[in-house]
């Protein structure tokens, strides 16, 4: 009989398992995993931990789940999402270990907290990769070496800026970040005598919601219409903010100097 209690946990332990699964799902969603992946992983964890009658519904910004005959039900709101694929990979690894029966609940909880605390790369790494990535994209879009240098300067600057004001609202960050990129590009391109267009779009790749947009269409293809819509509106809003940011600086530049750059 004692074996059976372990197979089908009850009471307090069920609630603890539920909390753990919700936290795992939230970690996945907050760090850029797809909706169906979060759903699938939570389902697998529930099966492995023998949580009966586990049902979950995941949206881009929320998780609804119940277990048993709905005697436990939980809702999580996930308003803020970034992309940290290392954490997604860690939670995935954890779910595999749980499914293989290698860890018990106690260890799993510890590992989940460790996964949530995997840091972002340090500031120098962020500035460097932003600069090199922007330069590479400026050249991929057909820019010359000089334009790549301008894009690198703007990409590095904007990553420093994003790091400095990570507390500000996301859309405000995007708007001011885009304005900053355009400003730096105009200044550096003016010094080097290069054209601004390729440099600006190369550095803007850091902020553009291309991945979000494509993932939203993927949600539609999967049949998650609501999640797809949320992501789509998110992507369109971000793009509008970027356009306002660059548009403002370009217009101001035209007014001040009388030269149209783009």
């Amino acid at each position, binding site marked *: 009989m004692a*074996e059976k209690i*372990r*197979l089908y946990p009850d009471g307090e332990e069920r609630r603890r398992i539920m909390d753990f699964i919700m936290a795992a799902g939230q970690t996945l969603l907050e760090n*850029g*995993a*797809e909706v169906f*992946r979060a759903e699938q992983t939570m389902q697998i964890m529930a099966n*492995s931990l023998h949580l009966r009658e586990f049902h979950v519904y995941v949206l881009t910004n929320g998780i609804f789940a119940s277990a048993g005959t709905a005697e436990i039900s939980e809702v999580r709101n996930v308003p803020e999402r970034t*992309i*940290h*694929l*290392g*954490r*997604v*990979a*860690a939670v*995935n*690894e954890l779910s*595999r270990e749980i*499914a*293989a*029966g290698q860890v018990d609940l106690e260890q799993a909880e510890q590992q989940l907290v460790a996964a949530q605390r995997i840091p972002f*790369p340090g500031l120098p*790494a*962020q500035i460097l*990769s*932003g600069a*090199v*990535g922007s330069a*590479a*994209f400026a*050249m*991929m879009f057909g820019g010359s070496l000089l334009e790549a240098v301008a894009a690198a300067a703007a990409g590095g600057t904007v*990553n420093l800026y994003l790091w400095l004001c990570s507390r500000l609202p996301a859309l405000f960050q995007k708007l001011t970040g885009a304005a900053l990129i355009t400003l730096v590009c105009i200044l550096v391109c003016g010094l080097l005598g290069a054209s601004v267009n390729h440099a600006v*779009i190369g550095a*803007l*790749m*850091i902020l*553009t*919601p*291309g*991945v979000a*947009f*494509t*993932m*939203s*269409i*993927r949600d*539609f*293809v*999967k049949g998650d219409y609501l999640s797809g819509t949320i992501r789509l509106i998110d*992507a*369109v809003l971000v*793009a*509008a903010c*970027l*356009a*306002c940011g*660059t*548009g403002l600086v370009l217009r101001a530049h035209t007014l001040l100097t009388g030269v149209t750059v783009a």
Partner: protein
Amino acid sequence: MTGTQLFDLLRQFLLGGIGTLCFGILFGIPRKCYLACAATGAVGWLTYELAVMMGIGAVTANLLAAIPLTLLARIFAVTLKAPVTVFLLCGIFPLVPGAGIYYTAYYFIQNDNLQMAASAADTVKIAAALAIGISVMLGLPFPKPRHAPPEKKK
């Protein structure tokens, strides 16, 4: 294919790899996945450039590029034991219409409706082509990695 074209493709391959890797680092991918991510992105971008060079339109080129990209991402996911998302999100970065969606919004605020409609249509078509290519290749049956089935405790 001429030497210049070959050189150009090689250059694009390297640039695609570098760009993907840099954004992968910003996305916080695990260290063991760095090379695999760069390879995924570079192969996707190379396929796209090759298709465009052969005179294929941008939308079809994106659809074509999504195929080897997703396959490679799945292979890396099995061999490196990481979720497909890690390689997929980074790998499609050179292809996604980030520039297109930005230009759409830019023409919108500039009141240039013709240009806006054109770039909006392109953006949606490219994103749809990518999404369909990825979904089809992810849905394809794949030989499962050999590992012991989850043991039930008795």
